[in-house]
């Protein structure tokens, strides 16, 4: 179609110029992505859907982290702690206060936002690696509290347990749609939350508040002289970021029958950092691509291993003992390769591909 070949995009109003997706092609692509997302549960079985749900939760968490680290430049090694606060706030409020699942997730988001602001206070004085160490302290403290404070593990009447059992959550009160049992019910909930988070985050960075975040990352002294109060906006970045991470944590809790500290360790923090680095720092799309990549990578390795070993029991056993090391190795390799070949991440790679086809057959 000749009319779709772009020799330039021309706007007549500032409103149309300031749109996120000004061209028809861009809108068509997003519609396609939505259709694909809605079609997934009709294509995949419940085992695969479990992995997809993992991607959805990770994508929400990665967007949260990207607001803080990618956009505002505040390196955080405390992602695991923020997720834990969200998950436990949601789980505990269901257990102790009897909150319905939706209220407990919203409650979790607010609690995590408050926690994030608390952790963000040192950021006024600490920059870069020093701040990272401060957030690392938060990570360790939260982990310690979860392990050592009994009521948190739901040990109400003197029982000691390692995990907090989550009451069943029913979507629309329908017993068929149990969030921690029905992958499909959870998928639509998770997808809706992800969509809201994507829209909200995209909007944020079209306004002066989001611009102030990026300004702090790029040049904090100049940002101050432009009227940005560093303390206020850094705290706001921590609050918004942790609010979204809290949503992810709350969803994690409601998706599980039980939660325990193993899912919120420092490795989780690093995994999330890997997501936003590989996906693309300071991009919403990159957070999603990175989440897909990091969650799917170990699963793909497993599938690949299955294909190679075949049905021979001995070689399957040998492969299974090797798998964790293989996964870690490939994970590390992926980060190194991403940093060398495309430091701006999958998002940039995707943009390059689009540019190539937009200008095809010309190279410029």
């Amino acid at each position, binding site marked *: 179609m000749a009319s779709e070949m772009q020799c330039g995009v021309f706007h007549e109003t500032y409103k149309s110029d300031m749109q996120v997706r000004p061209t028809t092609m861009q809108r068509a692509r997003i519609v396609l992505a939505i259709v694909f997302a809605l079609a997934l549960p009709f294509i995949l079985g419940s085992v695969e859907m479990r992995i997809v749900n993992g991607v959805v939760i990770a994508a929400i968490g990665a967007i949260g982290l990207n607001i803080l680290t990618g956009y505002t430049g505040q390196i955080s090694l405390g992602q695991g702690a923020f997720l834990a606060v969200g998950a436990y706030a949601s789980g505990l409020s269901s257990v102790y206060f009897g909150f319905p699942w939706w209220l407990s997730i919203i409650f979790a988001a607010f609690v995590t936002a408050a926690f994030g602001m608390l952790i963000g206070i040192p950021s006024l004085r600490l920059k870069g690696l020093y701040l990272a160490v401060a957030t690392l302290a938060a990570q360790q403290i939260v982990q310690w509290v979860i392990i050592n404070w009994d009521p948190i593990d739901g040990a109400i009447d003197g029982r000691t347990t390692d995990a907090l059992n989550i009451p069943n959550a029913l979507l629309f009160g329908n017993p068929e749609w149990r969030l921690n049992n029905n992958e499909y019910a959870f998928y639509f909930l998770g997808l809706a939350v992800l969509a809201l988070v994507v829209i909200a985050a995209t909007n944020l960075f079209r*306004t002066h508040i989001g*611009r102030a975040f*990026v300004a702090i990352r790029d*040049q904090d002294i100049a940002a*101050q002289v432009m009227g940005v109060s560093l303390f206020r906006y850094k705290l706001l970045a921590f609050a918004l970021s942790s609010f979204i991470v809290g949503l992810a944590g709350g969803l994690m809790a409601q998706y599980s029958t039980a939660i325990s500290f193993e899912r919120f360790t420092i490795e989780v923090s690093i995994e999330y950092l890997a997501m936003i680095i590989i996906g693309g720092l300071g991009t919403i799309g990159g957070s999603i691509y990175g989440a897909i990549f990091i969650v799917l990578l170990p699963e793909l390795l497993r599938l690949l291993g299955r294909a190679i070993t075949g049905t021979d029991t001995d070689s399957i056993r040998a492969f299974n003992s090797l798998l964790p090391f293989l996964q870690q190795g490939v994970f590390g390799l992926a980060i190194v390769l991403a940093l060398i070949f495309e430091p701006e991440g999958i998002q940039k790679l995707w943009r390059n591909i689009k540019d190539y086809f937009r200008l095809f057959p010309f190279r410029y």
Partner: protein
Amino acid sequence: MQLSRFARPYEADRPPAYPLQVENVFLSFGGVNALSDVSFTVGVGEIFAIIGPNGAGKTSMLNCICGLYRPQRGRILYGSTNLVKSPPFHLPRLGIARSFQNIELFSHMSVLDNLMLGRHVHMRKNVFSALLYWGAAQREEIDHRRFVEYVIDLLEIQNIRKQTVGALAYGLQKRVELGRALAINPSLLLLDEPMAGMNAEEKEDIARYVLDINEEWGVTIILIEHDMGVVMDISDQIAVLDFGRCIATGTPAEVKENPDVVRAYLGKG
């Protein structure tokens, strides 16, 4: 504030102008006296140049004015506000903007976004309407975009407005930085070597913009510059710093003839 109702947007939201009074400012870093007992007054609507050899304390003076350094003694009065006591992010609200000697732009943002940051202090919408980008928040963005476009027209940078700042040529970056300060809609503009490292033609451009800003917009300008030709041509008043002391103030003609200034900085020629 509907900026579109104003033929000249700078009339819309500029804070009132006052003379700037620097009184006995004393600043030291450890044993080094960066500024000792510096006093001068900048009248409303003036182009006021600060000159002096390297290390004389010119940039330190600007940093004191905009709150990045805290002088140990002395006052800097702008209207009834003592700038020595106000935090840097408060200055744009008083109508004071500055550019930096080494370009300090937000290098990963577009030219437009850099300039839109100048509008930051004029934007009121809270975080919830920002997340929704609905109605009022969107209108506010568009309204301020109009102001930014006005600045873009003045500085003739229409063709680069969507480009990432980090990828621009040095001269253009300097111009964008001037634009970012101007987008604040200041009544007092501090320029730290806006022409450093430029060729004659680029210098002429910047000089023209500075004069336009001063005459059309009526902005008071404090300028640090090493090109004496430009300084003598465009400034109304000059202060000369040497080793942290203010050795002379006056009109270009007075300063040119001052024997202390000739010895310390200008040289015989």
